[in-house]
C-alpha cells in the first residue's frame, strides 16, 4: 500500500467520522424538535426523557435499515456499471 492509498484511506476515515458526528447532531436536533415542547423546567420531564430515548433508539434502527438498503442499491449500481463496461 503506497502513500497515495494511505492518504486516501485517512481522508475516508476522517470523512466517515465527520459524517457520523453530523448524523448524531442531526439526530439530537430531530428528537429534540419532536419530543421537547415545554419549558417550565431546566430538566427533561419523564415524558420527554422517554420520548428522546425511544426517538434516538428508533432513529439508530432506522438509520441502520436505510444503510442496509442504500448499500444494496449502491452495490447493484456498481454491478450494473461493471456489466456495461465488460467487453462482449
Amino acid at each position: 500500500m503506497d502513500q497515495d492509498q494511505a492518504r486516501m484511506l485517512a481522508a475516508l476515515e476522517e470523512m466517515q467520522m465527520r459524517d457520523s458526528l453530523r448524523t448524531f447532531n442531526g439526530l439530537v436536533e430531530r428528537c429534540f424538535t419532536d419530543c421537547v415542547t415545554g419549558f417550565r423546567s431546566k430538566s427533561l420531564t419523564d415524558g420527554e426523557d422517554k420520548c428522546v430515548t425511544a426517538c434516538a433508539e428508533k432513529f439508530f434502527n432506522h438509520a441502520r435499515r436505510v444503510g442496509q438498503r442504500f448499500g444494496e442499491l449502491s452495490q447493484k449500481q456498481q454491478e450494473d456499471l461493471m456489466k456495461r463496461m465488460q467487453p462482449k
Partner: protein
Amino acid sequence: MSGQQMELEAMADMFNKMVDQCFKKCVAEYRESDLSVGESTCVDRCVHKYWGAHQKVQDILQKQMQAGGPSARPM
C-alpha cells in the same frame, strides 16, 4: 483524488438527507424503539424512491447540459 473525495462527500450528504427524509415520512411516533412492520416496509420503499428520484434528477441535469443550457451557478 480530489474529485473522488467530492463524490464521496456528495454521496454521504445524499445518504444523510435520505435518512432524514425517510424518518420524517415513515416514522410517526416514539412509543417503541423498534420499527414496526409498517414502518420498516415504508422505510425500504422510501429509500428506493429517494434513490430513484436522485437518478431521475441526474438524468435531467445531463440532458440540460447536453442541450447546452448554461450552468445553474452564477459565473
